[in-house]
């Protein structure tokens, strides 16, 4: 899960301080690994540099935690592009997919589309594996089967998530 | 927990399962209860029949007014004159009696508080209703007198009887059937049923009851497949084989007990309806329909026992294990040997009866006969599954519907055979009955020889002083709208040696119809030659008419007879033109006529009314080509009614079983339609699935029924003769069950055969 995309998504609902962004991120995406402050400010600096966020204002008192950030149009476009792009089907990409789904729900984008897009990518990969398996030798078959079962597990997770979208939406936007 | 306690608990569990498993198990139990109930009701009715007939016989005997004694009863203070009035209304007989007491202590019949006075009539309740109804005016002229009362039940054969007692003061003992009695009530010797008739009743009862038993056996199996699945589930949670059997027994027992209750209910309902129902002239008081106690107890014990027994037998063919039910039927081919035992035993029971000499008046042992017949009929149900299996195994596939049906029957032909065994038994019994009946009917039906092409009815008036003259009769006939009539006067004459002959007085025109006359003028006399063995009175010979002496005119000429229009026999006796008849010497003359009616509705009823105006004892009889024994008619009607009830019952059980089969196969059938199988093809295969076993069943029924019929004919000593037409008719009625069931299952099949049926998956 890319922290930068998560921040952009969180900022879409309104300008925010770095400290609040960290807290929101930890709550939604961090699971049991909270962000270090250093990571927070490094990420925000990078986003500023690329013009994806801008400073919305500095409150009196000084200190980095007093800066407020807002998302730019370029930032929104960047999120759009990221969400629309399926992840390369590979192992252990649930965290990324999860992040995308939560982000889509947070920003009011159609989360089901993300799942459908991803399923299409997965199925394409599975078709390719099925073809290879059909034309290959026993070793090929075993390797392909291994990959197929993992991809299938991903897809099952996707299906389940799709089925649970409503519940998830209620939780995320609460 | 004691052993008995465990038993009771498992039986109860079964009973509870039979009703608590939701709608399906409820409806199964209800279906069984209704089915068993219908069977029980029929059994109870049969068990009540002897009681009802006894009660009826007792009542009719108590009002009997014939006294067969050698010496005529002398007039006294206790005597009564009685005459029969043979009233017939439409197709029904009215039992009419004229009575005239000759003293203060004259007896009166049961059901009456006193004798009706002259000009008074006491009528039966149904006659009263009939007279009050729209047909009343058409019948009223024949009920002589003012209605002053109603006959009580004790004086009636049944609630539907039409009867009246009319008081008179003009009766005289004499040739018109007026007789003198001093008491009512049977004097002893009743004629008893003919042996053929007795055997007929036994055969009829067995033939009607065996299919009922088969039906009860089928009814306790309604919904068996679902029951089997439930038992498998029980087995999964740890019930062992014996427990499963006891639980199934409990279920069956509950169905049977509910069936007994339902049957008692149906029976009581039918009993109430019985007062309104009539079979021919036969009707029954509800109170007379009391099942004989022994038979009722037998039914109450046998039905639950049979139901549990059938269930256990069916379970014997199943291997119920936790994961489902396996039918063992296919693995074990059916053996013929023990299946043939029953019919053979039946025939062995009947063979010794062949030695009974019925002609010599020996009575057949009805119990042995019944047991033999029952064994043969029940044997059919044992042989049929074997036969169906055998035949079906040899069938080759052909067109698609045929192939589907044949393969299905090959998979489980025994089930199909069970379903049709009821029909086979009923049809076999009916054929045997029909064969026996045809013989009996031949023996009891007489060709009357009447000239029905020319005349419709015969009118006989009374004799003696004040009798209607030929002219009065002619006038009455004109009023009744008769188209043609052959009117003459007749009397019976007797010679001293006891030889009798007939004197007929009529116009030349009429006489020419009776004999071949070359010439005829008023004043002529003729002697009809008659047939062989008939005495032709010699001219001038002396005869008596009652007390009067009469001589045959010396100039009487011999002439050839023509056949009588009444009985087809040759006209006999003396034919006189009116001027040649010395009426004072022939006091017994009475007017008679053969009448042709116009085609008006109720023309015959009008004729009867006009005839009644000539006197209540005037007899009008319809001329028919044949005449049958009344008792046979009653028995036959009873048999027809019973056969219809049995066939309806069997049709119902086939319908239930067919619906269940469809329900079990609905998914497969829907899938076949989805694949593009035309519904027509499936309908045909379903039809064939029923038709093939029914055809086999009917074939067995024809063989067994004919064989049984032949044995029965030999039993009663009648020549063996097979009535092909009647057999075909019975077979046709049995076969009609196939289209009937097909039509009635049509809507359910239609629902299944919509491709949408696939969605029930």
């Amino acid at each position, binding site marked *: 899960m890319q922290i930068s995309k998560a921040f952009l998504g969180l900022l879409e609902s309104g300008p925010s301080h770095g400290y609040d962004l960290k807290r929101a991120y930890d709550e939604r995406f961090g699971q049991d690994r909270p962000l270090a402050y250093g990571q927070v400010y490094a990420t925000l600096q990078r986003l500023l540099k690329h013009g994806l966020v801008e400073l919305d204002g500095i409150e009196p008192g000084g200190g980095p935690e007093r800066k407020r950030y807002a998302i730019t149009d370029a930032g929104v476009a960047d999120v759009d592009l990221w969400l*629309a*792009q*399926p992840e390369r089907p590979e192992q252990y990409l649930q965290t990324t997919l999860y992040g995308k789904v939560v982000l889509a729900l947070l920003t009011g984008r159609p989360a*089901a589309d993300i799942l*459908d*897009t991803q*399923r*299409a*990518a*997965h*199925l*394409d990969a*599975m*078709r390719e*594996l*099925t073809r290879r398996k*059909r034309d290959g030798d026993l070793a090929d078959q075993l390797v392909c089967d291994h990959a*197929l*079962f993992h*991809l*299938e597990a991903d*897809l*099952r997770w996707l*299906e389940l998530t*799709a*089925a649970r979208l409503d519940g998830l939406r209620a939780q995320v936007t609460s | 927990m004691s052993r008995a306690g465990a038993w009771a608990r498992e039986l109860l569990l079964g009973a509870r399962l039979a009703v608590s498993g939701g709608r399906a198990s409820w409806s199964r139990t209800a279906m069984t209860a209704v089915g068993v109930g219908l069977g029980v009701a029929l059994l109870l009715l049969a068990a009540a029949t002897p009681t009802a007939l006894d009660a009826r016989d007792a009542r009719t005997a108590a009002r009997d007014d014939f006294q067969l004694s050698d010496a005529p009863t002398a007039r006294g203070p206790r005597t009564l004159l009685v005459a029969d009035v043979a009233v017939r209304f439409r197709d029904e007989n009215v039992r009419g009696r004229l009575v005239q007491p000759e003293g203060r202590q004259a007896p009166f019949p049961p059901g009456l508080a006193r004798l009706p006075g002259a000009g008074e009539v006491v009528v039966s309740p149904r006659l009263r209703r009939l007279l009050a109804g729209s047909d009343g005016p058409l019948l009223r002229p024949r009920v002589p007198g003012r209605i002053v009362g109603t006959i009580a039940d004790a004086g009636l054969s049944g609630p539907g009887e039409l009867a009246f007692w009319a008081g008179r003061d003009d009766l005289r003992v004499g040739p018109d059937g007026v007789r003198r009695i001093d008491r009512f009530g049977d004097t002893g010797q009743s004629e008893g049923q003919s042996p053929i008739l007795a055997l007929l009743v036994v055969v009829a009862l067995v033939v009607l009851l065996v299919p009922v038993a088969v039906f009860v056996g089928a009814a306790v199996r309604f919904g068996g497949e679902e029951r089997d699945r439930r038992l498998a589930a029980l087995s999964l949670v740890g019930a062992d084989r014996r427990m499963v059997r006891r639980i199934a027994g409990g279920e069956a027992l509950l169905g049977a007990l509910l069936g007994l209750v339902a049957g008692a209910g149906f029976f009581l309902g039918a009993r109430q309806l019985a007062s309104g129902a009539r079979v021919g002239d036969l009707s029954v008081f509800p109170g007379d329909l009391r099942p004989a106690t022994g038979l009722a107890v037998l039914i109450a014990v046998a039905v639950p026992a049979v139901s549990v027994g059938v269930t256990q037998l069916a379970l014997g063919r199943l291997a119920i294990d936790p994961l489902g039910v396996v039918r063992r039927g296919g693995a074990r081919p059916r053996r013929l040997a023990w299946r043939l035992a029953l019919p053979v035993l039946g025939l062995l029971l009947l063979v010794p009866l062949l030695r009974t000499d019925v002609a010599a008046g020996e009575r057949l042992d009805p119990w042995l006969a019944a047991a033999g017949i029952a064994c043969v009929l029940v044997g059919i149900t044992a042989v049929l599954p074997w036969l169906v299996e055998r035949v079906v195994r040899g069938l080759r*596939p052909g067109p*698609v519907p045929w*192939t*589907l049906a044949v*393969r*299905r029957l*090959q*998979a489980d032909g025994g089930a199909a055979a069970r379903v049709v065994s009821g029909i086979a038994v009923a049809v076999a019994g009916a054929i045997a009955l029909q064969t026996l009946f045809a013989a009996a009917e031949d023996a009891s039906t007489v060709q009357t020889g009447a000239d029905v092409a020319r005349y419709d009815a015969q009118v006989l008036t009374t004799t003696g002083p004040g009798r209607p003259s030929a002219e009065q009769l002619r006038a009455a006939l004109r009023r009744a709208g008769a188209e043609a009539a052959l009117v003459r006067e007749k009397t019976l004459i007797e010679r001293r040696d006891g030889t009798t002959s007939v004197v007929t007085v009529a116009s030349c025109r009429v006489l020419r119809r009776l004999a071949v006359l070359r010439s005829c003028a008023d004043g002529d006399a003729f002697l009809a030659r008659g047939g062989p063995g008939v005495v032709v009175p010699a001219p001038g010979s002396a005869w008596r008419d009652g007390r009067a002496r009469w001589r045959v005119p010396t100039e009487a000429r011999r002439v050839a007879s023509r056949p009588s229009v009444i009985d087809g026999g040759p006209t006999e006796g003396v034919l006189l033109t009116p001027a040649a008849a010395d009426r004072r010497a022939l006091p017994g003359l009475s007017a008679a006529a053969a009448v042709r009616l116009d085609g008006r509705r109720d023309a015959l009823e009008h004729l009867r009314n006009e005839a009644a105006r000539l006197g209540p004892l005037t007899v009008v009889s319809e001329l028919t080509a044949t005449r049958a024994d009344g008792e046979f008619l009653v028995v036959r009607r009873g048999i027809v009614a019973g056969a219809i009830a049995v066939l309806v019952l069997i049709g119902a059980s086939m319908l239930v079983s067919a619906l269940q089969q469809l329900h079990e196969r609905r*998914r*497969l059938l829907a*899938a*076949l*339609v*989805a*694949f*593009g*199988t*035309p*519904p027509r*093809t499936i309908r045909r295969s379903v039809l064939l699935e029923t038709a093939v076993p029914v055809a086999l069943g009917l074939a067995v029924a024809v063989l067994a029924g004919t064989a049984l019929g032949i044995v029965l004919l030999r039993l009663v000593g009648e020549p063996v003769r097979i009535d092909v037409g009647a057999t075909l008719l019975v077979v046709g009625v049995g076969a009609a069950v196939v289209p009937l069931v097909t039509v009635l299952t049509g809507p359910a099949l239609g629902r299944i055969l919509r*491709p*949408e049926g*696939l*969605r029930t*998956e």
Partner: protein
Amino acid sequence: MTGPAARPLLVGTDLHKAFGATTALEGATFAVDPGEVVAIMGPSGSGKSTLLHCLAGIVRPDRGTVRFDGRDLATLTDAERGALRRSAFGFVFQFGQLVPELSCAENVALPLRLDGVPRREADARAIAWLERLEVADVARQTPGRVSGGQGQRVAVARALVTTPRVVFADEPTGALDSLNGERVMDLLAGAARESGAAVVLVTHEARVAGWSDREVVVRDGRTRTTELLA
């Protein structure tokens, strides 16, 4: 696969279907080209099977049209649709489709016999298909006596014996283990591709969908066709 110029063989447009109060389809759209294998996917109760039934002319949609080879199925009589299903379509279901009393060979020959093919010839063709699906050894057995995998191959043989133009398969491997399911799918997809038949495959298993060329997802009675960015 056929070229892109070919007109879609079977097209369902804006299909609606309700069973009583339950809405099964609410604007589903679907198209399949000759020789194409399309998987219909979606959670249970989403309307997958109803969509298949509508496309196959088994169920009449309340609204929308189904065209096969340019012909609107709604204009056909029941009998004509039955004939169409018999001759132009083939069906493989999860279970309950083989007549239990007929032998496997007779089951396969059944559609041919319904079309009036003489028994001898129908039998020969049925045996040939059973051989092709590697189950010729059970030809004379009844379906109750063969394994699930064998039974399903018999069902595939029956679906293909009339050389249909579309094969409808509703969870064809639903009752089979992985290896058997794989064999059945290999044979089904392979045989269909060889004969140029289109396959409409309803499944909720991604691995089964791996044999398809393309998938259509049904959710809440609507179809979502995903076009890959790329």
